């Protein structure tokens, strides 16, 4: 049976042009589970990020620049933040009750002084009339 593939296909193809030696991100790839991500084919110097379709995890698989390098596999768990957790309020442990109470007393004192000044101004205006 004749071979329909000319010799040009049997020759070893020219390698792609030299690219900078840096990890390139292939973008999110959906996978059904971690094992599929671990077995996913990744080229030298490439990094692929996976989104688990059935579990709250993100995986990354990064290949080195030679067959001697062991691929690096990382697993990240997605944790949902509640609205209160996402606020800028400090943790409860950062609050000192005594500091808060003394601050409130100080503010009360300042308010009292302001009212006294207002009363004095009113009295001066009434006497001036």
């Amino acid at each position, binding site marked *: 049976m004749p071979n*329909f593939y000319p010799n040009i296909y*049997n020759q070893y193809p020219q390698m*792609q042009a030299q690219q900078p030696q840096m990890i*390139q991100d*292939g973008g999110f790839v959906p996978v059904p589970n971690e094992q599929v991500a671990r077995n996913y*084919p990744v*080229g030298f110097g490439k990094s*692929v990020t996976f989104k688990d379709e059935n579990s709250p995890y993100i995986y990354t698989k990064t290949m080195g620049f030679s067959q001697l390098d062991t691929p690096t596999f990382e697993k990240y768990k997605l944790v949902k933040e509640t609205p209160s957790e996402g606020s800028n309020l400090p943790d409860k442990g950062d609050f000192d009750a005594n500091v808060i109470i003394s601050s409130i007393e100080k503010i009360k004192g300042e308010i009292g002084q302001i009212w006294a000044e207002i009363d004095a101004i009113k009295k001066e205006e009434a006497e001036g009339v």
Partner: protein
Amino acid sequence: MNPNDLMSMYQQMCNNPMQVLSRRFNIPQNVDMSNPNNILQYLLNSGQVSQEQVNRAMQMRNHPMIKALMNR
């Protein structure tokens, strides 16, 4: 290409698709062809396909039309 050659190609693909694939991409004998990931890894290592092409091909497997074809 005449119709007879075309039919012959089609028969080759039907009878032994792995042989046609290994000849087309010059895949050596020591690559375990039973696992598609091994084939893709070889094609990546030899520079015959890019990572983006692999990603697109892998995601095509989830397309409903492709799934319907595979289940025939």
